[in-house]
């Protein structure tokens, strides 16, 4: 199993999506898993950036507790 497939499994990619990836020939499975993981990281970064932008309007001293409250 490629690293990307393991990572996606650990992150909770649904079983049907994992099954589809794993049904492909090894090189294709690895390529698709890499692409899904890269997209996940891009989207995470985009949401993170948007959240930080939102937090920037919160006065400095309250930023950390607000972040914790909102985003865990």
């Amino acid at each position, binding site marked *: 199993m490629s690293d990307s497939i393991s990572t996606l499994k650990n992150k909770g990619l649904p079983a049907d999506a994992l099954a589809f990836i794993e049904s492909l020939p090894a090189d294709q499975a690895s390529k698709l898993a890499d692409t899904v993981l890269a997209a996940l990281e891009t989207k995470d970064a985009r*949401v993170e950036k*948007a959240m930080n932008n939102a937090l920037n309007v919160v006065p400095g001293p309250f930023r950390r507790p607000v972040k914790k409250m909102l*985003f865990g």
Partner: protein
Amino acid sequence: MHIETQAELLKLSRLLETDEADMAFLDGQDLNTLAAFRNSVSSFFYEQHQDSYQRLAGISKLVPTGASAKLATTVLGSVLAAGIASELPAERAIKLADKLPDDFLAKLCIHLEPTYSRALLATMPDKIVATVAKALLAMNEHITLARFVAVIQPSALKAVTSTVNDGEAMVKIALYLEDKSKLDTLLGLLSETQQRATLKAATDHELWPAVLSLNGHLNTQLRGQMGNLVAEQGETVLSRIIEVASDQQLWTNLLQAVNAMDNTHQQAVVNVAKLREEHIMESLITTVAEENSWDELLPLLPLLDHAHLTPALDVLTERQPQTLDQALSQAHDSNLLGLFGHLPEGEEQRVAKALKNHATDSWQAFVARNSDAQEIASLKAQLG
């Protein structure tokens, strides 16, 4: 690559933020499986941040909608706003949408996760939907629009379609529809002018593969209506459509369209000179045999003039005589009788020879089922 596979891989590459060509290795996978994979991954991406969206939605509910709208455009941005909107009660989300600028709302819609935003889109008032659709259309966001079409209220769909005059956009929206059973509703709402615009776009933008493929999802009435309009496009366009059917193995779709046309238009289409070309006729019979669409082809063969029937019989009796055997076993007898009863006198001999050499058993069974049929009396006599 089949046009519907191409459309599915475009949607997947868009979700995965990669180049369409990077997904080409998935060509050949089952279309429904690919779509299920894409939907599953899309929900997975959304669920990674769903907690945060829910908390932000909770806060948003405490702030007046005007202030929420201001925050959304100036601070949150369209990505977060899309997530939050999906977690808001529909009533609150609609009030908020009403206060957002059109272009921001359109961008927000691009980022909506289909499964989680379905309920919200289904309850959006017609006016907002139509405004957003107009903005999305200007942005060439056909994939997002197709998602809209699939879930919005019929009255909203009517409002949207009445403003779309871009034939290319209409074909692409139809192509990207997740649930093709909605095509009848969509096409039924278009005026004849709009329907003609889709056909003009098919010629101008090389969209005939899409139009032919989509035709297979239409009900018979609409298929006939569109088919008649297609038949009026003239010899050059019809020749191009025949080439597309040959290149993309879309013959069955084309045959279905021709069968649904009125008789005058059928005669015009089946006797286009392009169809006489050897490789075209061979491709037609090969696809019909592969897809077992004899009952689509056979009723049209008696409409062929002699110059067109000869190359068809060349393939059936000489180059691919085994297909005659298949046709006898799988097609409806009435369609076979229609063909045999219309064979020109000079052609009966070679058909009889091919039947004798390549389809003895199936011919005997066919004769036994149709012993009284006058259409095969002459062939029977030739075969002894």
